[in-house]
């Protein structure tokens, strides 16, 4: 492959890993626990901004053309870890706003409004993260290793892959643990979970925190590669893309977020790159969004459980003394995401 092609493929691979990390964080919140966090993207943004201001030098550098807080110039692994921590704490904080248990769709639109207002706040406050223009020239980690741009890209892709793998393993361990069972119990029936002695509020705050930290990690990995971050990088529609990715891939399943993240943001959003340029410059990106919207509606109508539906969790005894009658699989899992009753409620 030529250098340009390798550069392009490596960039796609890195973006793919970033989306997989983010989608698995959202899957933990939305798919496993049933927390409808429509402000998910602001935690990715928090991680990205945090990494940016921790790796950049003081604000007065580069002729002071951009204004921001901190500017600590910390070495590589620290910004990533601090970003995860900050985004996690922010997650718990915003989650605490919803401790008064809100109806699923009410919570979703409230979080949506919070996400939009947060974009407005960061845009308005010039001194925080340089307002609408955003931050640029964010230093990349391990640039001293190689001088070749292509080699560096593949190196970074490997780093993103390792981070992605660690996150996937961690989420998998969490979901399959007894704690994961409690989280699913909260999703299926909050009152029943509470009656069994589960602290529903604490569990929800926990996934707000852990999911937020994972989103922060995705933002950190993304910004250290892209080297720039502005309010237009984290519009509310990005959250919509991640939710669509989960619904297409399979809500609550282990591999669903991976498949969904590859199909929706990477293939659908990058697919337009191969369309011949036609019409005004906004036409192709608009068609891209319309495609994502149509794909979502088609999946919700025909395959609401996604490509890889969540496996039904059953607890068979090791050696059944009496034959178990198989239950129809249309029970608790998947079909009705709110764990609600029928229509008209």
């Amino acid at each position, binding site marked *: 492959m030529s250098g340009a092609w390798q550069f392009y493929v490596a960039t796609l691979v890195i973006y793919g890993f970033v989306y997989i990390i983010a989608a698995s964080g959202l899957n933990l919140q939305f798919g496993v626990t049933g927390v*409808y966090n*429509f402000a998910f993207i602001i935690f990715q943004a928090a991680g990205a901004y945090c990494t940016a201001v921790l790796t950049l030098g003081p604000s007065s550098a580069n002729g002071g053309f951009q204004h921001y807080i901190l500017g600590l110039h910390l070495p590589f692994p620290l910004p990533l870890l601090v970003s995860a921590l900050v985004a996690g704490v922010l997650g718990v904080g915003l989650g605490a*706003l*919803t401790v*008064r*248990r*809100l*109806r*699923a*769709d*009410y919570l*979703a*639109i*409230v979080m*949506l*409004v*919070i996400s*939009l*207002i*947060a974009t*407005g*706040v960061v845009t*308005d*406050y010039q001194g925080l993260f340089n307002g609408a223009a955003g931050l640029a020239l964010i230093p990349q980690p391990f640039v001293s290793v190689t001088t070749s741009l292509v080699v560096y890209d593949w190196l970074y892709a490997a780093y993103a892959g390792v981070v992605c793998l660690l996150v996937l393993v961690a989420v998998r361990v969490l979901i399959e643990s007894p704690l994961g069972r409690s989280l699913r119990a909260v999703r299926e029936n909050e009152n029943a979970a509470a009656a069994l002695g589960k602290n529903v509020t604490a569990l929800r705050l926990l996934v707000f925190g852990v999911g937020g930290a994972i989103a922060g990690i995705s933002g950190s990995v993304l910004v250290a590669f892209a080297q720039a971050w502005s309010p237009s990088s984290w519009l509310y*529609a990005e959250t*919509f893309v991640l*939710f*669509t990715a989960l*619904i297409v891939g399979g809500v609550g399943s282990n591999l669903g977020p991976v498949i969904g993240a590859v199909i929706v943001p990477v293939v659908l959003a990058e697919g337009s790159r191969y369309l011949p340029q036609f019409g*005004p*410059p*906004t*036409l192709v990106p*608009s*068609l891209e*969004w*319309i495609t*994502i*919207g*149509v794909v*979502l*509606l088609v999946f*919700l*109508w025909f395959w*609401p459980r996604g490509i890889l539906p969540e496996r039904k969790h059953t607890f068979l005894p090791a050696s059944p003394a009496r034959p178990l009658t198989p239950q129809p699989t249309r029970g608790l899992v998947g079909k*009705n*995401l*709110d764990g*609600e009753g*029928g*229509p*008209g409620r």
Partner: protein
Amino acid sequence: MQSLALYVGFGLVTASILCIGAVGFTLQFGISNLFNLAFGATMTAAAFVAYIGNAHGLNIWVSLVLGTLAASLLSFLLNRGIYLPFRRRATSRFTMIMVTLGVGIILQFGIEAIWGGDDFSYNMSTGSSVHIAGMLFTTTQLTVIGIAVVATTAVHVLLRYTRLGKAMRAVAVNERLARNCGISVKAVVDSTWLLSGALCGLAGIVLVMDVQVLNAGSGDDLFVLIIAAAVLGGIGSASGAIAGAVVIGVVAEVAAGFINPEFKDISAFIILAAMLLLRPTGLFSSVATAKEVAR
């Protein structure tokens, strides 16, 4: 205090626009038990229909009626064609949010695909400036306030004194009981979508008449404040939506102008966050409580 009055005046104009939209949005939720996130894009679509009429030489007020009717019809069709079929399948509430948001995204970017990212404006005069008690308005802005007052009064009269309005309120509080009392819920829902769609379109068009700029994202920017106003006032309550619109509109403009432009979004956020913690059902909470939006 001279300038405080000035910004209260700006706030009243914003509040009037918010009022029209918030009443429409809250009615849709009250009667259909559904948050229609395509509302913002429908506002933009109405404003563009009015723009087409206006650009073809129609008077701005005729265009306004045209755009309002278009939004009314579009909302009705969205409910009948997409939302109702999904709901008949017992689609969960959260999934309905994804459905309406998906429709909104398709609409918004459909508009952008046609008109691109450019700014447009109506061919109309803003009129002369008028001073009232330290506040400064253009005659267009006074008309906008007038339209809001007339529209919300009309909705109030409809809900309070007509058979249809009583049926709407009955469906909002308890759909099953209303059905058992012989109310045709289907007819009520259809008329609600026609009415709220008209309010939605009206809000989008008067917004553009006020700010003089129309682009594919126009409706969405206002929609955030509309949701905030409707949630603050108590989702589902028309009087609540009016109260919420006045609070959000006036506080945001006063904070932006009188204190610092940076406070515009912050103030809306603080109001909303405080409300969620203290009284998540909003100021006028009868419908919100009946629909169990928060426990």
